[in-house]
């Protein structure tokens, strides 16, 4: 098997971004944000959308967790578990780059 890439694993230091084939777009017809990718359209809920919007290639996972915990007035440890699981799942589907 000639795998040129390796599976990326989320760490607090990863700086996730959206790959070129994925974009977030507001859809005025349905009045909702859509995530567009080859062959698939996703309708993320508010929290997923907040995570994806912070995937700017600059912010680390640690930054993202801190920011979300502040915004949602939530325990950073609980937020961390959810954010890491979400990003790993999206990275495994090639929808987020770590």
């Amino acid at each position, binding site marked *: *098997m*000639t*795998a*040129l*890439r*390796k*599976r*990326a694993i989320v760490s607090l230091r990863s700086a996730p971004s959206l*790959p*070129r*084939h994925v*974009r977030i*777009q507001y*859809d005025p*017809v*349905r009045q909702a944000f*859509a995530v*567009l990718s*080859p*062959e698939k*359209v996703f309708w993320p809920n508010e929290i997923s959308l907040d995570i994806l919007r912070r995937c700017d290639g600059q912010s680390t996972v640690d930054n993202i967790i801190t920011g979300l915990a502040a915004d949602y007035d939530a325990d950073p440890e609980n937020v961390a578990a959810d954010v890491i699981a979400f990003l790993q799942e999206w*990275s*495994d*589907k*090639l929808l987020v780059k770590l």
Partner: protein
Amino acid sequence: MSEPILPPIGMLAELTHRCPLQCPYCSNPLELLKANRELDTQTWLDLFSQAADLGVLQVHLSGGEPTLRRDLEQLIAGLSARGVYTNLITAGVGIAEGRIEAFAEAGLDHLQLSFQGARPATTDRIGNHQGSHEKKLETARRARAAGLPLTINAPVHRHNIQEVPEYIDLALSLGAERIEIANVQYAGWALTNRDRLMPDLAAVNRQADIVAAARERLAGIMDIDFVTPDYFAIYPKPCMGGWARDAFMVAPDGIVLPCHAAQTIPSLRFERFGERRLAEIWTDSPAFNAFRGTDWMQEPCRSCERREVDWGGCRCQAMAIAGDAAATDPACVKSPIHKYMAILTDAAQEEAASEGNESFIFRRIGATIRPSTRA
């Protein structure tokens, strides 16, 4: 039971039926349209604009071979200006120097490249085009160099099902983000060539194991989309996500269709873009409303708990095999004629063994159509 009609999300634009390849499983209709029947640039642009207004978020530019349209850059730019996600589905043969870069500059989001085999000899034989494999490799390299995300499309049948592991290696070596391992769907030319294309059960089961293992091994490395073979299924696919539910397609002459093969249902009449606005066709066209939702269903679909999971399956397969477009898709185990699917696949194997030849009816304009011996 009637739900409101939702706006469509996806549109498949068959820009042309012209193609340098002659794949015997092509999803185009048997009666191919010549270039003089194709919509002009402005009409496609108007159609795309109306599609965006209606709520279409993704347009798949296909054919035939869409790059034979000299205005493809313009069409991509038009879609891109409206924020529509564009996916080019190409055979990757004979694309002039500099054009792939021009597609990327026009705003193309993603390129999907078909390989008829993982081995050069298979690709060249199935597409009936000498040297096509090498040209496709070059197209993949140029797409990557232009920064375009890439999906390798592997249409699978008896003659290449054993190449599935090599297909996965090929896609990895080309740097693809995705591979679609798509078992041929027996409509259009594939129905005509069904006995010459149908794989056997052992090969189908091997393939499923290989794909499952590869998916696990390649999580986070390459996404594998697997289109399973209908004739070996227990439940049918929700064809097009349900008839006229969230997607539609447009033929080269502007006829708006719920799916590729819809014109094989003789009771339906379809409308042409230009004679009516797209929004009117989507909501009012009797052909779109014929199998929308669940009201049209008969038993066993009508009372089935999966009726809004698979939406009765494929109407065209019901037409082709059961002879009734409103019947349950025979791919479903609950169809009274489900057992007939196994008879058809067995018969294809017998014919393969007895004939001993692989004389496909290749897809080309004006090809003599020898009807399939069954159904």
